[in-house]
């Protein structure tokens, strides 16, 4: 056992008879037993009476928000990525109630840290209301009739979540060996220290003995998990590759004769290749020396409903990427018609290419009915429509689109000849 000091000489800032002081002293003693450098320890405290202990510790100290200390500590543990450092969380039953997800998540992932829950069965700093740890029958100033619900068994919860070391102790006397075991366990450990608040708990429940209370609540005082759990390793990729690689580069090879921007909206159904078709349409424009943009529109449900895309191809730089009134509108399905009806009605010129199975919406555009779906099937209808439109609108050489298509894996699934029916 080392003689390194973990606590200052100043009196601990707690009410007389409060178990929090014993938690602090036992923490210091356990760390001495483990012969750790105080500055290899990071104490993370929650909000609550226990949280004002920071100034008494000679370790690193971090004091955050109510209920979030376990998540903050998890970030520190993951950021340190060094099991030689000890990350210790002090929280109350109130903070544990607020941040229960962080405890479960921390145990699940196995962050290298120890959570010490100061369970005095109520929120002490804010007047003594019950927490979700308050046992059945326990009275508090705001619940004088006593709780009608059983409190959480945090130890059982932590075992279920995957914690490596879990123990419940009665917060009386010397329990530093329990802390020492928890601090030296790999992965996520938790010790629940049972206390009774001298200001609110004792007054509301006169004559009640802590050990009897714990026993009546059905909470076992024992070790629940033995410390042989997995420990979270932070993924570190020291040589990640640049996102701007030569593979992305597009080489202009063809030429387009268009003189001004053309906006093309393609509207169809999710799962029918609308976004890919639009991307090919835009990329092939680049291969033809044009600038291009592609903006997608779809509902959040990825696999159903409409899928639409707006493409602009232009010999000039494109600033505004919207196209409220398309020059060319392609509608390949009933979902697509529903979404594009408004755009069709805004068109006073231009062309509407629409699958011939669909009703023609109100529009000022010239209408071309084409059996897209019948000729190539629903799944390839958008891709076919794009080939068809590039050819008939003379946007750029169809060969440019063929090149882009054939350089993609999709070419293995669709016979290019079926897309060249003009």
């Amino acid at each position, binding site marked *: 056992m080392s003689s390194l000091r973990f606590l200052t000489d100043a009196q601990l800032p707690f009410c007389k008879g409060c178990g929090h002081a014993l938690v602090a002293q036992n923490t210091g003693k356990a760390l001495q037993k483990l012969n750790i450098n105080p*500055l290899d320890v990071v104490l993370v405290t929650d909000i609550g009476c226990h949280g004002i202990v920071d100034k008494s510790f000679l370790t690193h100290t*971090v004091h955050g928000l109510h209920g979030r200390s376990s998540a903050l500590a*998890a970030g520190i543990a993951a*950021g340190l990525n060094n099991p030689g450092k000890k990350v210790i969380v002090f929280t109350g039953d109130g903070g544990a109630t607020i941040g229960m997800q962080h405890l479960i998540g921390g145990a699940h992932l196995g962050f290298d840290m120890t959570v010490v829950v100061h369970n005095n069965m109520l929120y002490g700093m804010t007047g003594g209301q019950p927490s979700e740890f308050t046992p059945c029958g326990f009275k508090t100033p705001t619940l004088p009739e006593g709780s009608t619900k059983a409190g959480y068994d945090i130890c059982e919860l932590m075992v279920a979540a995957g914690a490596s070391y879990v123990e419940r102790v009665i917060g009386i006397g010397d329990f530093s060996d329990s802390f020492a075991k928890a601090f030296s366990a790999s992965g996520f450990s938790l010790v629940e220290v049972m206390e009774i608040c001298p200001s609110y708990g004792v007054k509301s429940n006169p004559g009640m003995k802590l050990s009897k209370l714990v026993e009546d609540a059905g909470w076992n005082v024992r070790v629940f998990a033995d410390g042989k759990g997995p420990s979270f390793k932070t993924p570190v990729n020291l040589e*990640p590759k640049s996102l*701007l690689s030569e593979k992305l580069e*597009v080489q202009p090879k063809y030429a387009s004769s268009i003189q001004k921007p053309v906006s093309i909206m393609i509207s169809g159904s999710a799962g029918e290749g609308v976004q890919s078709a639009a991307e090919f349409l835009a990329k092939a424009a680049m291969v033809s020396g044009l600038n291009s943009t592609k903006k997608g529109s779809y509902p959040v449900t990825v696999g159903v409903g409409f899928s639409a895309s707006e493409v602009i191809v232009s010999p000039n730089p494109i600033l*505004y990427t919207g196209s409220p009134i398309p020059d060319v509108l392609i509608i390949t399905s009933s979902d697509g018609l529903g979404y594009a009806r408004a755009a069709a009605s805004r068109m006073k010129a231009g062309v509407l290419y629409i699958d011939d199975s669909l009703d023609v919406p109100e529009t000022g555009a010239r209408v071309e009915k084409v059996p897209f779906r019948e000729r190539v099937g629903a799944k390839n209808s958008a891709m076919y429509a794009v080939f068809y439109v590039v050819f008939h609108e003379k946007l750029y050489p169809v060969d440019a689109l063929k090149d882009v298509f054939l350089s993609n894996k999709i070419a293995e699934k669709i016979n290019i000849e079926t897309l060249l029916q003009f």
Partner: protein
Amino acid sequence: MHESKKNLAFIDGSRLITEALVRAGADTFVGYPITPANLLYLYATKRFPTMLAAPDEITTLQWMSGFAVAGHVPVTATSFPGYALMVESIGMAAMMELPMVIILVQRLGPATGTATCGAQGDLNVVFGTMSGGYSIPTFSISNYHDCWELSAKAVHTAIQLRTPVVLLTSKEMVMTLQSFDWSTLPEIKPKQVKLYNGSSPYLPYKADESLIPDFLPVSQNQHQVRITASTHDTKGILQNVLPEAIDNTKRLELKVRKHLDEYTVFDLDEQEGSDRLIITYDISSQASREAVASLRAKGEKVSLLVAKTLLPIPRVYVEIASRYKRVVIVEENLTGQLRQLLFGVAGRNGVSGVNGIAKMISPTEIIEEVLRHE
């Protein structure tokens, strides 16, 4: 024709943002892939040295803060529903003086709204993030060059000022694909956190005239580090309302304002003889640039201010606006959030807005408003 271009590609803004963040010195991405920030999350899995998937946005900001305490520079990307959950923790990180970047990809609200529709609805949310009206340096992206340069600026500012920084953008900037030649982008140099190297005990919140305290991570064991979100003295010890502690709290705002000139970024395109100014930011910038080009082609005189540093509001924006009889502020929201920040509820004669939701504001709408009183 593109023959002369070297690195022509069909890419989205998310790719440029992610690459720039890492090059500038960010090393950790933590996040939940909320729509429409998903692509940033996806690229982060490939590009960041460390990437952690968090279960939610409160956890995200807490993990990020933990990483920052350990000496890392973390980034996340979210949208309003996630940002709302982060708010308490952003205040914590600002009070703790932790560097980090939060990319806020705006989508149509209120509440969950329409996740796949863009917007410029969150400037007021960011403005009001901190209790007490403290400022979070906030940048907004107007085009692909900004995806690159402002992302780097956001990281550098977060590191330099030891503060969370918000990078505001919108669905159409991070998800739309555009032809772009990245050989035109400038080099980005990484910035390091300035560490304390003295021999006397380290005071985590003691600052020199820069008002920015030196940093030490909890990974070192030479000096004790105390970090706290509660009102604290220079030692990092919780204090009620002691003058030293209150001075420290005031310093947070003074720090951000003292260096504002160093991170004030805007494009000002003034036309001589014009008495009309368009002010815009974010996703409405490109439509505004197009509108200005069209107006000038028709012989109409008009100037343009694209605001890129949004918060704290640089005083120079007000000075520029004061030179113009007519000011048209273009933003994709219902109530004119930048307009109110610049001119208040009372407004000013000659100031009007082009606003709208659920679709990008078009150059035509801007031109109509500029010419409305002619």
